[in-house]
């Protein structure tokens, strides 16, 4: 290696080292400035978690109001009246998945088990938070209670009518719901 290469090589290395150090310093200063600014704004800003909690709170309050009549008739075991009230809500709020939960509970309490399981499945598929115990929407325990009670009856029915496709489908859906309610990473 000639002296020119040696000198130029060392100059290039020194230049690169200085440039690298400068860039690291500039990046660090920019990040710190940005971090300080974000910290100052923290009081005004709402974190994602708080936002989510607020959203859940509002939703629960709204649902409580919407389903007030359904809940009242259901509590008094006036299932026909509850069904009418639910139908009215469904017409006004067709996208609210809680209707499916009430539908399932009504069907379950009027002995329509197969329909109840199907409604529970649609409810859980459209709103997984119903079975997520980390959210205030969680009602997994009451769903599980209904499923456990239904299972015994369905198994009995299946023994009596082994070729009944409707019962087989309901049993499959019930087992699916049990797996969903059990949790896991899905």
């Amino acid at each position: 290696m000639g002296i020119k290469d040696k000198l130029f090589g060392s100059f290039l290395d020194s230049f690169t080292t200085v440039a690298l150090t400068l860039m690291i310093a500039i990046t660090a200063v920019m990040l710190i400035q940005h971090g300080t600014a974000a910290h100052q704004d923290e009081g005004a800003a709402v974190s994602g978690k708080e936002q989510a909690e607020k959203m859940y709170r509002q939703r629960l309050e709204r649902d409580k109001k919407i389903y007030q009549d359904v809940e009242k008739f259901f509590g008094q075991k006036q299932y026909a009246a509850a069904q009418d009230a639910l139908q009215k809500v469904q017409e006004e709020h067709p996208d609210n998945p809680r209707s499916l939960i009430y539908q399932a509970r009504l069907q379950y309490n009027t002995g329509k088990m197969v329909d109840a399981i199907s409604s529970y499945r649609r409810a859980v598929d459209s709103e997984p938070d119903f079975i997520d115990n980390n959210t205030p929407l969680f009602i997994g325990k009451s769903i599980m209670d209904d499923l456990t009670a239904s299972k015994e009856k369905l198994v009995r029915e299946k023994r009596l009518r082994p070729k009944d496709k409707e019962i087989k489908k309901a049993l499959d859906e019930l087992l699916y719901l049990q797996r969903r309610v059990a949790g896991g990473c899905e």
Partner: protein
Amino acid sequence: MSRLKLPDISIVTGVVLGAGAVLLTLVGNPVNSGICISCFLENLAGALQLQDSLRMSYIRPELVGFILGSFFMAKQSRRFRVTGGSSPLIRFLLGFFMIVGCGVFIGCPIKMILRLGAGDLTAVAALLGLLFGIWLGGKYIRAGSVLDRAQSMPTINGYILPGIGFLLLLFLFLKPSFIRQGFSGPAAQHAPLWISLAIGLLIGGLAQRSGLCITGGIRNFFLFREKTLFSGVVAIFVSALMVSLVSGQFNLGMEAQPGAHHSHLWSFLAMVLVGLAAVIVDGCPFRQVIKAGEGDVDAGLTCFGMVTGAAMVITWQLRSTSAGPVFNGKIATLLGLIFCLTIILSYRKARVKR
């Protein structure tokens, strides 16, 4: 006085991994999913906005711990060796398909063992599939289907994956706006950050030291009747079983199992894919993460393939739900098997020609 004989390091690693995973579920991680590389990668892909399911978006500190634990242990024990350059694109795609297989089964090989340890009998078909895939892969290796040899590389290459690990750690603490975190679903189910990180670092360090690998342990046992790593695999199962029994998480049977489905044929095929791909790339998904931390650039590339796979598994629905495998997942599994067999066949032919 006779000296006290210490248990083998792979058994220690297995015990810590199995028990640690169940303990993580007790302090917040999803049931039966205390440690699952494919689930963690899906969560990571969501956090980085590579997939759009907010419920599956969280940087799992355990994953960062595995990489950094392995890195620190390799540096400390002078085993940080930077190698790479072996069939990069093939490894990337095999990493991709390994996660597809995991997505269709709903879990990586570690989660499969954890599920079995918790009494989930739906994982038996997957175990049989994994064993078959590894056995088949072992046969192909014996017949000469081996990827190109890795070569020594400049050290900087080995620092890239641990560097990304550090970056993810920074993201975890600084929470920049472009990193997403879900507040419901699996993303919200997590152990406290420090506990996850500590367990991750411990397991990462031990796994680097022992070389524990689910598929590697079974492969070595099939090929050479070598039991060192295999005993570690058994230790994962036994410790997970013990802790599940003691903590009341054990539920023997097929029904009401969390994150499971009853399509046993697809569970079997999905794990054949994982076993076969893992034998070709020389390590299960967990081992790839550990190797990436110790300077193996090929494993690093496989990890990139796995992250891409994790993102696509959610976005393209190449997976199963509790209802069973989605059509796209079935096709992807079959494509993965076709890809593996094509690679094996072409490498075998190339070797025969040479």
